């Protein structure tokens, strides 16, 4: 290695001065995967990021909603033994618990469905299998959310 080879190398001798300085800056190397005018527009939007954030936000809210629900249903006031039509009628007489259950229904179903979508994406490899499993998942999710919502809004304590 002598100093007489290539004058303009980006790699200076290890202990020598750099070839570049403030007045003679090194050429800019673009960051990998940087978006430029030539990059095609993303067609996916930020859906995955929104889903990721939703899992966390809904999770925090669900801790309060679901654990209180379990405390009321399984622990307080005699545990499961007290549950029956009359008990439900008493609870849904209050708009507070109606809204509570509605929120819990929507958040838990959407959180769980999105979680299951991830699981399907991870394990089902054939495009057809994925399509069918997700179709089944979305159908069951929409059905459950609609049914649960309907039940809360149309509950009738004097059904008989």
């Amino acid at each position, binding site marked *: 290695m002598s100093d007489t080879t290539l004058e303009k190398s980006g790699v200076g001798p290890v202990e020598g001065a750099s070839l570049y300085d403030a007045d003679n800056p090194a050429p800019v190397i673009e960051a990998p995967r940087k978006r430029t005018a030539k990059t095609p527009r993303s067609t996916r939007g930020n859906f995955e990021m929104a889903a990721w954030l939703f899992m*966390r936000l809904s*999770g*925090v809210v*669900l*801790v309060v909603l*679901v*654990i209180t629900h*379990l405390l009321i249903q*399984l*622990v307080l006031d005699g*545990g*499961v*033994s007290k*549950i*029956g*039509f*009359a008990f*439900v009628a008493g609870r849904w007489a209050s708009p507070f618990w109606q809204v509570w259950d509605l929120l819990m*229904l929507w958040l*838990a*179903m959407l959180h*769980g*469905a999105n*979680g*299951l979508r991830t*699981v399907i994406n991870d394990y089902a490899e054939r495009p057809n299998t994925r399509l069918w499993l997700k179709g089944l998942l979305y159908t*069951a999710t929409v059905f*459950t959310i609609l*049914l*649960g919502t*309907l*039940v809360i809004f*149309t*509950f*009738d304590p004097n*059904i*008989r």
Partner: protein
Amino acid sequence: MPAGTLYRGREGMWSWVAHRVTGVLIFFFLFVHVLDTALVRVSPEAYDEVVATYKTPIVALLEYGLVAAILFHALNGLRVIAVDFWSKGPRYQKQMLWTVVGVWVVLMVGALYPVLGHAVRELFGS
């Protein structure tokens, strides 16, 4: 276990497996749960009949299992959120996991009597 991996076969992987399994279980439970609750729109008798099965000793055991799944998923979910959003989260992920396990054990012991007490009374007389 292959050497030189920070994740595979260690606590982080197993907590992820448990989080996934409990999440899927809870989802299936919720599906059935909304169906059985919908019976209040059929008749009080139909609803009470199905809820009666919820009060049998075997189902009480399943309920205890459900509580176990929910509590783990909820506590570990908070840990995952802390790892993602708290600047020191990743550094303390292991300590947080053992905290999750500890709190979970305490809560599960606390849930023993409220959730299973009636089943024990039914099986062995009051």
